[in-house]
């Protein structure tokens, strides 16, 4: 007797549930979701290019800071102060790609009272003809250029005019790292 009662109860419950489920009509459909990630090259400036302090030369002169940070002067008396080549960290978020760098042909730095030109940018790259450009297409061959991560040093030549106005001269320049 107990078995029969259980059976009836089960059927009755089933019938109560079935119409409720059918009364609530539903539909489902899937969509795609997507995104793409591309490996990224980054370059970060860590040290500024600094020519230090010098006395204003009556006839003008030049100050060179090499990529290694060495100072050499022509027609100018250096008065000390911090001297440094610029330094950059070149990194890639994935892998170790080969890169080349783009530096300016020249920039102007100013004090408000006067301006000076900085040019002849140099780097610590072993093959500048293949790996450094001041614009235009990628140089090469790429096989002569470095892989990331790389610490890039940049030096340049400062041109001081005759009777250059006294002051603190500053400017900014862009260094771009590019993948071949």
């Amino acid at each position, binding site marked *: *007797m107990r078995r*029969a009662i259980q*059976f*009836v109860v089960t*059927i*009755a419950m089933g*019938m109560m549930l*079935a*119409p409720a489920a*059918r*009364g*609530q*009509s*539903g*539909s*489902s*459909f*899937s*969509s*795609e*979701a*997507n*995104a*793409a*990630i*591309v*490996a*990224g090259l*980054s370059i970060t400036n860590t040290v500024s290019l600094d020519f230090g302090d010098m006395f204003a030369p009556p006839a003008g002169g030049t100050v060179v800071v090499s990529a290694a940070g060495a100072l050499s002067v022509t027609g100018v008396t250096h008065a000390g102060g911090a001297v440094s080549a610029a330094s950059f960290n070149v*990194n890639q*978020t*994935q892998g170790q790609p080969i890169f080349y760098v783009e530096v300016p042909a020249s920039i102007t730095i100013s004090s408000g009272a006067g301006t000076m030109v900085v040019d002849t940018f140099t780097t610590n790259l072993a093959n500048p003809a293949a790996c450094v450009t001041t614009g235009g297409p990628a140089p090469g061959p790429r096989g002569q250029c470095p892989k990331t991560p790389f610490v890039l040093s940049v030096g340049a030549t400062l041109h001081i005019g005759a009777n250059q106005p006294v002051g603190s001269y500053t400017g900014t320049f862009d260094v771009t790292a590019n993948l071949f």
Partner: protein
Amino acid sequence: MRNLTLTLLIAAAVAVAGPLWAQTSEPQGIEIRNLTSLSFGSFVSPAAGGQVTVGPDGSRMLSGVVPVGSDAFGAASFEVRVRGTGNPNYVITIPTSITLTGPSGSMTIDDVQSLPSGTGKANPPARLDTLTVGGTLNINALQPSGAYSATFPVTVHLVN
């Protein structure tokens, strides 16, 4: 005698159920189909991670990431069609999160949102509605490069 009782009860149950099934001969129904994908775009792998939010209105907000290349984005869109009489609401069910997988990593979409949100209506006479879905993509620091994708379901139910 026990068998007879059982048979009668089953018959009664079927008789009661009959009219309820018959109601569906003039059914209210709802259908949904996908028109466009939820696309976040293309990004440079961020050194410190970032987020991309594509709203269900198709707008995009970036945080800590840089878009790159052929960078198409948009909300997922669906067409909802309601059959039958009346003008019932429908309830929308979307995932709380979606995991995108790529060649050597995964990313999570959370804060999934739909427009309309929660419930919608496909007004007569057309009884057609457009439902869109967006979300927030979390890109990890140094996320491996590649194409990431997933499928996610959107379900609609009529409520009377």
